[in-house]
């Protein structure tokens, strides 16, 4: 009976992933996954609920309620932090389970290695995710990269300490400590804009930790589900890396964009006013909006929707061009736009929209920078050279809505800003858009 439940559960998990593939079926995917999870958890009890004391049930109920409470209260713009936080909990749980199994029962030697692996990966995921959450909240911005470099050099040395000191007693605690520190340091040196990679990578690790836990307790469903998560995380990680033309190793090394080079502009940019932008837009036939992290920071989604409505009312075509690494997690911009009811049919990926820019009348760059920097195509010495970018500089007119001329994450100047077809509207993304919308009433 238990076997049949587990079989159904595994199949449901696989179908859930399949259904995640289309916007129209994705909400059913979540239901399938929940059902699969419920069956899997139920089967673990093996129809014997009396083996568990009240502390067990209270823990489940309280943390379940807490989970619902947190997830209902959080803002859409804080989604990356929340996913990171939950992810850390998953990893921590796997790590803790491995620890208990290592200290409690006598495991076969092959399983001991898997358990140590699970414990290390789980703890790394836990501390790494918590640091990622802090980074996403804007804390811990200036972590000392030198400290991390020193740590990386000494890291292999630290690992042989137990062997040298012949310590058996606290070996596991030592491994946990090292994994926790490694998680903190690895993630702390990675800059905010690389967070889509980090979050996806940690997501994958938590799956791998769960999968290894499956080997320890000999649970096929745990292995299957963990492997599915591990694979999905790896795909997203590699997608994000290739969208930046960088390797995972390079991203995890950290310190990207900390050396400021070639940060001068040959001439001053042309700045514009909300009124002029409104006039320009009202003469356009096609408009493409390129959202970036600036939109999330300013919580400008609602204003974007209002502007879109205003333009569509004037029969102007509006599209959204979304770079794969825009924002702080994979698909971040798409979620924020969906939140304000922008049709996903209007959201385009880099490959789908790049050929359209040359026939676009006005492009609005909304708090994005490096992903529209033409140096990625032209300057071989640039740190972003070779990164696929949105070719907005080919459009007839470009309006860059940005608070200042400060460089983006890569720490380099963006010649788009001084292009002949570009104008700067210096403002916070939300305020800027609202002022443009107000000006429309006067046009």
């Amino acid at each position, binding site marked *: 009976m238990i076997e049949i439940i587990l079989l159904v559960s595994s199949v449901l*998990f696989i179908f859930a992933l399949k259904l995640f593939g289309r916007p129209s079926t994705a909400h059913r995917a979540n239901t399938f996954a929940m059902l699969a999870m419920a069956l899997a958890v139920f089967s673990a009890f093996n129809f014997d609920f009396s083996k568990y004391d009240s502390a067990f049930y209270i823990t489940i109920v309280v943390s379940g309620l807490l989970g619902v409470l947190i997830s209902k209260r959080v803002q859409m713009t804080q989604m990356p932090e929340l996913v990171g936080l*939950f992810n850390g909990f998953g990893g921590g*749980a796997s790590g803790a*389970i491995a620890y208990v199994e290592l200290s409690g029962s006598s495991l076969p030697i092959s399983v001991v290695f898997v358990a140590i692996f699970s414990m290390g990966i789980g703890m790394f995921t836990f501390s790494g995710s918590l640091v990622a959450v802090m980074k996403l909240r804007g804390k811990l911005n200036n972590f000392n990269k030198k400290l991390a470099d020193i740590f990386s050099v000494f890291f292999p040395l630290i690992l042989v300490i137990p062997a040298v000191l012949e310590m058996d007693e606290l070996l596991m605690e030592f491994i946990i400590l090292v994994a926790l520190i490694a998680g903190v340091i690895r993630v702390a040196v990675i800059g905010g804009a690389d967070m889509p990679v980090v979050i996806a990578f940690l*997501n994958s690790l938590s799956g791998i930790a769960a999968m290894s836990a499956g080997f320890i307790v000999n649970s096929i469903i745990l292995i299957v589900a963990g492997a599915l998560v591990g*694979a999905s995380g790896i795909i997203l990680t590699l997608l994000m890396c290739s969208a930046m033309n960088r390797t995972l190793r390079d991203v995890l090394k950290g310190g990207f964009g900390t050396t400021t080079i070639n940060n001068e502009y040959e001439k001053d940019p042309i700045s514009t006013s909300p009124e002029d932008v409104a006039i320009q837009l009202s003469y356009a036939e096609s408009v493409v909006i390129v959202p970036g992290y600036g939109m999330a920071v300013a919580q400008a989604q609602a204003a974007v929707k209002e502007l879109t409505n205003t333009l569509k009312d004037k029969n102007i075509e509006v599209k959204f061009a979304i770079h794969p690494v825009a924002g702080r997690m*994979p698909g971040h911009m798409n979620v924020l736009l969906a939140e304000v009811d922008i049709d996903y049919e209007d959201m385009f990926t880099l490959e789908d929209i790049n050929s359209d820019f040359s026939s676009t009348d006005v492009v609005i760059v909304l708090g994005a920078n490096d992903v529209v920097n033409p140096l990625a195509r032209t300057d071989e010495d640039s740190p972003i050279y070779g990164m696929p970018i949105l070719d907005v500089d080919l459009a007839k007119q470009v309006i860059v809505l940005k608070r200042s001329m400060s460089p983006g994450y890569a720490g380099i100047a963006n010649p788009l800003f001084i292009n002949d077809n570009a104008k700067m509207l210096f403002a916070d993304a939300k305020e800027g858009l609202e002022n443009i919308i107000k000006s429309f009433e006067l046009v």
Partner: protein
Amino acid sequence: MEATFLLTLLITFLASFIGYELISKIPQTLHTPLMSGSNAISGITLIAAILIYPEVGESQLLKIIILIAIAFATLNIIGGFSVTGRILEMFKKND
């Protein structure tokens, strides 16, 4: 014993392969709900905690550690699915 272990490895490989194939086809628009959903699934490690909890014996420390693991995994599962549901709700109303 040998055969079972090999079989388990085979299952691991197949599951990873299926996961890889299915997820490669998911459009960028759905990357956030996918991550959030798969993140919730990684809380399945709760099963391991449930399996070992009755067998932990007298040690209070180990018992507390498992209870922490249970709390973490439950938060991960329930919170994760709940958030994914919220995100997908926004895609649904577009239809």
